[in-house]
């Protein structure tokens, strides 16, 4: 299947200003898409209000609009461009590629769809259509869809009375439970119940607070292992996994704030292949016709139970990492797939001889470490949770996890040369400790039990203070495989220190 001939111009929506949670990764993906589409002879129209982006340089698009990324503005652009196509007597039509500019682009495209503007001007969404985006983005629709194709999701239920709530809890059969009252402002009255008493208390309060007397009770995945898969699909339904990612930090911390590692380290082939099959089932069921998606999984470390958490029907932050980790340019190929090419018709950039219809296999480990800047936001709560707080990230490649982690930590530009042992002092609250000083156990315990930006360094402090792997595991739920890797780095530090002495 060659490229589509009914398309003349492609409208790409950028991501706008850089904010926490949406940074330069979407300039990277958008720029790649502009280049790829121009290469194929399409006229590229770009909307992005951020001048400090590569994609807004004049040579990347045929026409660049530095305008607010709002449905109203983009509507005006569509009107103008449709007229332009008529004026020049273009043979093809104008299409919209919404999947390369992050959530901003996706939301704007969906607003244009809901207002009927895309229909009015006959502008087709390519890559993913509105139905697919809706199925991927709406939590309830997505959850029901997953159950309908036989995949597992966190068990949950709604209750209007205490009795109903008890039945839901019985069905889930395991504490802790997450309680979310319906329609309360900012989720007031919600929380995590660790036992029966707390549960009953929270349900009573939640039912009181909810204007419709309804609470959602959901199984908690705190402490489960978190994984991601980067999937590509073409029009002929060929699917490949570009990259698998394992989160160092367990569930409960936003992926953007987690240390992540590619490829997956602690799944057997049997489990990995089930995850691969599930990833394809998800992208097909959601209906992302072409391009990339990011699918997130949680795995119970004791039972292997695997549940689907969410999917992004678009290029995401992880796609940039996956592209650089494997050499598979996801955004570029997603753009080509969107205009009709098949994976086996596109050449692999690295080998230049083999096609893009393959799954990268690597002989190294890639680690991404988030960069925080809490010192610039003194009023912000430095505890990490499901809301992203990092302002950037650094990635490093090594032949071992230890090498890639140490390099990534060194790349953060926070003045450290890795986990420690670099002779620099540690500033913790208003205390200053020497590099090789043993920190007080209570400080370490506190810093390990609550996820925070410095926790990775406290793994070293803990091991040096004599904490066992099991103790650290019970405080952090970080997989023992990762903890042992950290221990090897710390042991080596001790070995080097002993030689020096």
């Amino acid at each position, binding site marked *: 299947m060659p490229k589509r001939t009914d398309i003349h111009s492609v409208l790409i929506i950028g991501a706008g200003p850089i904010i926490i949670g949406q940074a330069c990764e979407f300039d990277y993906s958008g720029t790649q898409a502009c280049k790829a589409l121009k290469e194929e002879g399409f006229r590229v129209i770009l909307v992005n209000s951020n001048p400090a982006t590569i994609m807004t340089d004049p040579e990347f698009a045929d026409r660049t609009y530095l305008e607010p990324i709002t449905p109203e503005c983009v509507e005006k652009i569509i009107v103008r461009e449709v007229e332009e196509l008529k004026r020049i007597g273009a043979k093809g039509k104008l299409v919209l590629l919404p999947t390369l500019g992050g959530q901003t682009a996706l939301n704007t495209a969906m607003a244009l769809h809901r207002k009927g503007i895309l229909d009015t001007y006959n502008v087709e969404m390519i890559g993913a259509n509105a139905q697919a985006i809706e199925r991927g983005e709406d939590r309830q629709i997505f959850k029901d869809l997953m159950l309908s194709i036989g995949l597992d999701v966190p068990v949950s239920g709604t209750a209007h009375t205490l009795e109903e709530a008890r039945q839901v809890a019985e069905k889930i059969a395991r504490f802790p439970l997450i309680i979310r009252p319906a329609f309360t402002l900012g989720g007031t009255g919600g929380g995590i119940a660790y036992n029966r008493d707390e549960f009953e208390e929270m349900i009573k309060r939640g039912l009181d607070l909810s204007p419709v007397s309804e609470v959602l009770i959901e199984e908690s995945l705190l402490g489960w292992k978190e994984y991601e898969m980067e999937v590509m699909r073409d029009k002929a339904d060929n699917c490949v996994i570009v990259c698998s990612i394992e989160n160092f930090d367990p569930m409960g911390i936003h992926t953007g704030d987690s240390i992540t590692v590619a490829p997956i380290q602690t799944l057997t082939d049997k489990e990995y292949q089930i995850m*691969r099959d599930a990833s394809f089932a998800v992208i097909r069921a959601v209906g992302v016709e072409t391009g990339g998606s990011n699918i997130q999984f949680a795995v119970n470390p004791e039972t292997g139970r695997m549940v689907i958490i969410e999917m992004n029907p678009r290029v995401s932050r992880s796609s940039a990492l996956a592209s650089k980790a494997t050499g598979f340019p996801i955004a570029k190929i997603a753009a080509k797939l969107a205009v009709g090419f098949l994976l086996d018709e596109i050449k692999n950039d690295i080998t230049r001889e083999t096609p893009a219809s393959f799954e990268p296999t690597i002989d190294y480990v890639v680690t991404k470490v988030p960069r925080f800047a809490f010192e610039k936001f003194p009023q912000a709560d430095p505890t990490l949770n499901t809301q992203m707080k990092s302002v950037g990230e650094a990635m490093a490649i090594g032949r071992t996890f230890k090498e890639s982690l140490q390099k990534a930590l060194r790349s953060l530009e926070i003045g450290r040369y890795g986990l420690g042992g670099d002779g620099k002092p540690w500033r913790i609250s208003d205390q200053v400790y020497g590099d090789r000083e043993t920190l007080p156990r209570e400080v370490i315990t506190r810093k390990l039990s609550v996820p925070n930006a410095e926790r990775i360094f406290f793994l070293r402090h803990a091991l040096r203070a004599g904490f066992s792997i099991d103790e650290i595991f019970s405080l952090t739920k970080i997989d023992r*495989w990762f903890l042992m890797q950290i221990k090897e780095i710390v042991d080596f530090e001790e070995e080097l220190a002993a030689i020096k002495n």
Partner: protein
Amino acid sequence: MRAILALEDGSVYHGQAFGTRGSACGEVCFNTSMTGYQEILTDPSYKGQIVTMTYPLIGNCGVNAQDVESWRPHVSGFVIRELSPVVSNWRADFSLAEYLEKNGIPGIEGIDTRALTKKLRVRGAMNGFISAEDVSDEEASAKAKSWPGLMGVDYVKEVTHATAFQWDERDEQSANFKLVRGTAASDIRNIRDPLPAADIPIVAYDFGIKYNILRRLRQRGFKVRVVPATAPAAEALRSKPAGIFLSNGPGDPAALDYAIRTVGDLVKSGIPIFGICLGHQMLGLALGGKTFKLKFGHRGANQPVKDLETGKVEITSQNHGFAVDADSLPSEVGVNRINLNDQTVEGMRHKRKPIFCVQYHPEASPGPHDSTPLFDEFRAMIMG
């Protein structure tokens, strides 16, 4: 404990030993799969080979009793960059080192597997010697040089079962592996898909058959009688099977005169035949074609194969050092699948007889499940 790996070209790698404190010769090859070292170790097709994993961190998930592809590991030696100091997986029964030690297989870790792989890619697969015993570099190199190699040697007779048997009569080993669902308590290690009735009797030729092929056949409703590689066609056909399956296996296909004759007789009988890997190569030879040795083989879980009949691309699991020469095939045999990396033959279909085969591993294990439907195709071919 020190270990050594020497190649026939005189190069020597030093590392640390794990597994058994022994020595072995073998053809040194590499596998690019990032998962599935346990399945690779237990695949009988690796008989006579010292396998290097290109992925550097191995042993992370340990070894479990369920994910085996035969009764024991078959590699001559195992070469990795870094052995995990800990086992992290809910199903693990042993560590990788314990498992290799119990089975008498030497391993070496801590060597530059990337440099080794690059050398094998340039020079092609080489004979080698691995040892965790006290041997000098010179002795090791001499052993590597003097080993006669795989060409022309029949390794099948070392891995085929000695007598015929009925596969999994009590349906204890064939059900598909599944993960626990929902929050209901159950025995998490033994959740399995139900099996259909075993109502189609077939004979599977065991040239070193992987268990997952037998599991997949059973999951498609086949009642499988496994016969040794040496069983003549008449013996296999005596039980009136509805079809014949030809398995994977180790070594040089051209060294198996007796089996090629058998396959020729089976082809003549007109019975439906499905072959995988060595089975595919033997069909190629029996139908009048030729095989040749690939420079460094296809071993990994990411080989793209194009189905020329449908245009679809499957990501496949592969493990072969030899391939069928497309130009040598008679006109009644069509090449219907090719490898997109090097355009070599990955599948054949007979134009007049119910015979098809693939060079890769639709049973996966390890590797992607993209090609599982081939087992349904075999069933459909038999059922007409």
